[in-house]
């Protein structure tokens, strides 16, 4: 372990770019490629597809959006569907802003808002994984470098997906698209705190069963059940350990 107080902004920035340029960038780029394919099928032109990735930057919401667009749904329904699909953003931002200590950063609100616009599952999981390797100020530098890099990968993926889906054979495309779920799920299982790992296992395990009856509500339900279950387990364990210590 290196001395974290010795890390310079330059080093944090380079580390962010390098870390993002491997699996995270490829995973996100391929996910956005998949989105562009669906968007094109739904009748979006290139700029609409590009702008959707750029301004929404939240995959489940983007997919819900273009899928409904293809069916000719009302504007209101689309708004509600995107809002529901991306509701998890709020919790991710609360958690991400806490990890990055944005409250104590002294940054103006618009800058913090812009930073959080760049927050994706990938970058959130990454800073959660790396939070003890940097002090808060350097973690913010690392986060910006990492997020902007995967954003560039994502926008490149959107562009490639829109234009190249005719020449990319589906046999290759499906391999590339499989990277995202595998990478993120394994990254979650690498979380430093055991309560986070337990939450991920519980949420991930119940979701497919709930999905059959609850549809896309299953994600919110599974999140609530998994998170609450994990917290309850560790709170109870601490309680009984303390009790045992006092009694014994």
């Amino acid at each position: 372990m290196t001395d974290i107080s010795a890390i310079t902004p330059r080093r944090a920035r380079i580390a962010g770019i390098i870390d993002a340029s491997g699996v995270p960038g490829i995973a996100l780029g391929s996910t956005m490629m998949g989105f562009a394919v669906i968007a094109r099928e739904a009748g979006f032109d290139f700029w609409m597809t590009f702008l959707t990735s750029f301004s929404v930057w939240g995959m489940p919401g983007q997919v819900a959006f273009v899928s409904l667009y293809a069916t000719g749904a009302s504007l209101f329904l689309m708004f509600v569907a995107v809002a529901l699909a991306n509701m998890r953003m709020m919790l991710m931002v609360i958690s991400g802003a806490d990890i990055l200590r944005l409250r104590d950063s002294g940054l103006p609100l618009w800058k913090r808002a812009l930073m959080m616009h760049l927050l994706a599952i990938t970058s959130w999981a990454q800073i959660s994984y790396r939070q003890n390797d940097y002090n808060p100020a350097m973690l913010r530098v690392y986060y910006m470098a990492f997020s902007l890099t995967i954003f560039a990968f994502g926008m490149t993926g959107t562009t490639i997906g829109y234009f190249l889906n005719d020449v990319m054979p589906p046999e290759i495309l499906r391999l590339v698209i499989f990277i995202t779920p595998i990478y993120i799920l394994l990254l979650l299982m690498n979380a430093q705190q055991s309560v986070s790992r337990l939450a991920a296992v519980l949420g991930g395990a119940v979701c497919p069963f709930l999905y059959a009856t609850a549809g896309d509500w299953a994600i919110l339900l599974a999140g609530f059940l998994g998170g609450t279950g994990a917290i309850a387990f560790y709170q109870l364990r601490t309680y009984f350990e303390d009790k045992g210590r006092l009694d014994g």
Partner: protein
Amino acid sequence: MAEYTLFETWLTIFLAALATFSWRFSGLILSDYIRPDSLLMKWINAVAYAMVAAVLMRILVFPTGVLSTTPLDYRLACLAIGLLLMFLTRKLWLAILGAMSAFAVLVTYF
């Protein structure tokens, strides 16, 4: 195919962006009021983990598009291979590589 005017189409994109940004912005404002080490923050963090895992499991188990042309058994088996490799080696890159290679072999040759 959809019957929206050009204006409506651009409006829907604006609405989609607004729908997402509202959550991010509320999260940012709320984060100022929740103490970092409180039980509430721990709970939010745990729910975020569970929810993200749920999103990815939905994609893995019920995919749409080109991934749905692969058998569910293969997808789950490769996740298991990845998890096993990670617990044995503690190396994320190796686990991803193992899971992806297994998937490439399975869907191409079986």
